[in-house]
């Protein structure tokens, strides 16, 4: 469980996260909001690339913000990026194995864990294929496999379906739904594809201008008029 309390991030005169307070329960949680709402900044706070000026984040009872960024991955925070970051020169296997190497897990289970993660995301290419030779959808899956190998505690997926065709998105959605049960990790999913969010997430939080404006069961949140208002603007919401 992730508890965020009064989190504030400021870049000069901009406040991308403004006193955010939220609780993310185990399972797959959605995090949605219009562009610039602070979703990626929130991920960057969780992975340690952005230092907040105030507030606290407690992950499974531990104060997350006190940990150095590269240690958080070892502890169990994993993420994917909006622009996919699988390493082109390395094979699929090495891409995933690298995460395992820098975790606290023993090397003896590496092969099984790595192949297990690759199998979990379900790829057509063999584990020795170079990532540079893969298409966009498979590269995304490599990145997801990197986030799942070993014993992740918290998996952050930042727009994993961006630019993917419907068929690939459906496959990705099926993979995401399996993550909590198969790995024991909880997932926070940021995406603009509302059908993916409502398919995967039991609960969803909505950010707008750095503030949490709604949170709860996904179906209820998506009907919430404040959410519709934030997405569509005042007049369109009135018409609905």
């Amino acid at each position: 469980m992730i508890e965020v309390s009064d989190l504030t991030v400021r870049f000069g005169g901009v406040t991308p996260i403004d006193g955010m307070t939220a609780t993310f329960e185990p399972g797959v949680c959605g995090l949605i909001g219009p562009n610039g709402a602070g979703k990626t900044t929130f991920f960057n706070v969780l992975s340690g690339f952005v230092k907040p000026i105030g507030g606290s984040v407690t992950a499974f009872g531990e104060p997350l913000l006190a940990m150095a960024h590269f240690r958080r991955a070892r502890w169990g925070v994993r993420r994917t990026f909006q622009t996919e970051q699988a390493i082109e020169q390395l094979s699929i296997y090495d891409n995933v194995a690298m995460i395992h190497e820098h975790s606290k897990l023993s090397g003896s289970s590496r092969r099984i864990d790595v192949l297990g993660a690759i199998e979990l995301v379900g790829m057509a290419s063999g584990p020795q294929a170079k990532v540079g030779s893969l298409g966009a959808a498979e590269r995304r899956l490599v990145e997801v496999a990197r986030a799942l190998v070993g014993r992740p505690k918290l998996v952050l997926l930042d727009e994993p379906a961006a630019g993917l065709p419907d068929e690939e998105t459906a496959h990705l959605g099926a993979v995401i739904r399996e993550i909590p049960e198969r790995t024991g990790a909880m997932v926070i999913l940021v995406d603009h594809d509302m059908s993916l969010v409502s398919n995967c997430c039991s609960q969803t939080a909505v950010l707008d201008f750095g503030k949490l404006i709604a949170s709860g069961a996904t179906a209820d949140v998506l009907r919430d008029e404040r959410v519709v208002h934030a997405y569509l603007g005042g007049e369109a919401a009135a018409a609905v």
Partner: protein
Amino acid sequence: MATAEHPTTSPEAAAPAAQPRFERGLRVRAAVIAVLLLFVLIGLPQLLSLYYIDAMTQVVVYSIVALGLGVLVGRVGLVSLGQAAVLAIGAWVAARLLFGTGLPYEVVLLASGVITMVLGTLVGLPALRMRGLYLALITLMLAGAITVVLASLNFPNGGHGFSGYNGSEVHIPPIRRPGIAQTDPAYFRYSVIVGALMFLLVLIHVRTRPGRAWAAIRQSETAALAAGINTTLYKLWAFALASFVTGVAGAVMAGAVRYLYSIDFQTQDSITLLAVVLMGGAYSIWGAIVAALLLQLLPAVLNNLGVSPDWLIILFGIGVLQVLTTAPTGIVDQLPKDIARLGRLIARRFGRAPAPTETA
């Protein structure tokens, strides 16, 4: 927790099928390298004149230096313009130890590598804060500083004191060589073996944990951090490895030329070195050999033909431009492709269907 254990049956079943093919390719490659190495060790000294044997010893020295720079530029994405100065440090330390102590040559090689590693890693410290042009500039300035210090210190020539330099000496003793490698051909063989060990050391690094971490850092430092990689440690590790092999190369050089002068080490040598490393192919460790052939054998050939090697700087300039625009992976990767393309072209001319195995 039962959920954390991934089901393993299907990937384990698929693994044996993929593994042998992978290993066979590796074995073929190892065999080819062994045959080439044997030819260089046994055949080459028989075929070449002393002039070219000495040139080839320099090729070995610079292939090790290029190998180190290739790790920094190609693997980690850190541009250093100070590697020729690091080589000078290695040569200085080796000369000092060889004159001042009776240590076996192998120990001197190792000690030069380790001492240069410590100093060279200091040169790499700015890399923790900056990249690209600024890192290149800072390393170039450091190289300039090292060149100035060495010029005032002079290279050891058998004198006493810290510098081991005696300016009034009329008869200067040569730097000693290992007992088993007194003649030029024998010393060439000796240097090839040392060079092969350095290539092996780098190859092991590149194929294992540090190599994967470097690939991640090169692609994106942020993503590397998110993968749990201590980027500071691995960047310093790259500088340490590059400096170690360059220091060993300096020690090989000391015994090869036998008389060292500070005038032989110029700051701009590092720039030419980067140029040939890019031409040879910074992403492949074999590109380092191509780079060293360009840098050392080509001038020797031109000298032999009575052409000034200074013309090469123009050729290298054009070469870098060509590589950066049309073949970013360098000659070592491009040449086999070009030969295959030429083969297909010839085959088409003579009306035969292109054989699919040509690229293999």
